[in-house]
């Protein structure tokens, strides 16, 4: 077998991706082509930095998209470089510093603002215009999220809100209020959710059989404080007042604010208060070890999480609604 540069790069990517994903890598071509001859002569090679520890479905999509792209643009070869979440941003910045960045990277590891702040990515407006790319097909809020100083710095593929997941059987059995689908329904409040959680919670003194009313969480860096009218990075009000969300640069924090104390105290009381409804960290860990995301256990009446968690339900067949 001739170890061409392409094959070497592909082998490197597979090694970094790990054996668990090896089955997902597209099959090797059956015939070796010496580099620089035949159809390879006109080939342009681009590199694509992917996460090596990403979920199976994303890996499957990556493989299928690259394989299909090869049929659309046979003269562009996409080589992947796999790195885990924790190393992703550092890897790209190191490649950038070395003058050899990958053509394509993704925001898997919360990298967009870091890459933007480090001037490591290209504003896409001219390329979009030159190639007549119709951006009207993309959700405007998703485009806004990757626009800085009036320029577009990335193209979004996914756009995901944070929502409430619920176990309808558990809530109906308890006679509890079910979360509405109507986002303008102001009767659905944190107090109403807590009341539903209280109604659904059972056997809270026995972690082996408890049914928990809710898992609320804090949001990233505590931003569920937004519901209480605050934000960790300004002392005026909600996220619209935080300059760091526009520049990417954190210059102040307000974790000891009265608003943050009230919010965290509310979540704390749901775990340790006189009428607990949420699992303690050790109980959450135990459930996670069994089923992954605790909601999948069927023992949680409501849980707040991002819309990506829907994929969990596609992989199993819960016995509850």
């Amino acid at each position, binding site marked *: 077998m001739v170890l061409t540069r392409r094959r070497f790069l592909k082998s490197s990517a597979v090694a970094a991706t790990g054996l668990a994903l090896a089955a997902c890598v597209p099959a090797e071509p059956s015939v070796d082509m010496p580099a620089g001859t035949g159809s390879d002569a006109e080939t342009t090679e681009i590199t694509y930095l992917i996460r090596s520890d990403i979920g199976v479905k994303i890996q499957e999509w990556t493989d299928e998209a690259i394989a299909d792209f090869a049929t659309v643009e046979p003269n562009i070869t996409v080589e992947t470089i796999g790195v885990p979440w924790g190393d992703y941003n550092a890897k790209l910045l190191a490649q950038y510093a070395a003058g050899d960045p990958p053509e394509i990277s993704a925001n898997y590891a919360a990298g967009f603002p870091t890459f933007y702040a480090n001037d490591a990515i290209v504003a896409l407006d001219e390329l979009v215009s030159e190639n007549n790319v119709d951006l009207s097909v993309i959700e405007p809020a998703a485009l806004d999220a990757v626009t800085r100083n009036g320029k577009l710095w990335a*193209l979004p593929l996914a756009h995901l809100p944070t929502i409430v997941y619920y176990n309808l059987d558990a809530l109906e059995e308890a006679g509890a209020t079910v979360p509405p*689908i109507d986002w303008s329904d102001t009767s659905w409040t944190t107090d109403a959710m807590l009341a539903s959680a209280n109604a659904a919670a059972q056997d809270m003194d026995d972690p082996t059989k408890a049914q928990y009313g809710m898992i609320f969480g804090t949001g990233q860096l505590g931003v569920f404080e937004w*519901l209480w009218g605050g934000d960790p990075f300004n002392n005026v009000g909600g996220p619209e007042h935080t300059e760091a969300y526009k520049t990417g640069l954190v210059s102040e924090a307000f974790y000891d604010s009265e608003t943050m104390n009230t919010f965290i105290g509310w979540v704390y009381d749901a775990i340790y208060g006189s009428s607990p409804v949420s699992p303690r960290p050790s109980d959450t860990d135990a459930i996670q070890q069994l089923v992954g995301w605790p909601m999948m256990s069927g023992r949680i009446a409501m849980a707040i999480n991002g819309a990506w968690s829907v994929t969990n339900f596609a992989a199993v067949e819960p016995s509850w609604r």
Partner: protein
Amino acid sequence: MGAFPYGPAGVNTSPLFNDSWMLGKGAKEQDAGFRFLQYLAVEKGAELYAQITGFFPAHKENYPIYFDSLMNIPNLALSREDAETALLDAFNYGYVTPGKTLDSYPEWNSTFNQTMGPIWNAEVSVADGLAQVQAQFESVIESKS
């Protein structure tokens, strides 16, 4: 799936996440790179993304693909119309989450999670724990300035 609750401040601001793809500055093959980016975001790559990953697509014409696949989930308690309302209306009430806006987010995330631990383990009061979180954030901010 249901709506985020309104808090004491009278808002139900839902943190929004996006997964986006970028073109590296200084990469050798800018045109070919953008061609692939275009394929992923607005052509067949986006369609495959909606079909395969289960993540809500940013490409609006691929919404039906996503909702079709959603309806295959066993015991889903929502109709297709209700699922569309629960997910699509969320964007009118959302704000982009810090992981998608702050430089060095993984570092801030580690700082937050580590310093919140004593609170969640009931080792300190909420007030004392948050004072420690604040001190640690100020220390990291100072180290970066």
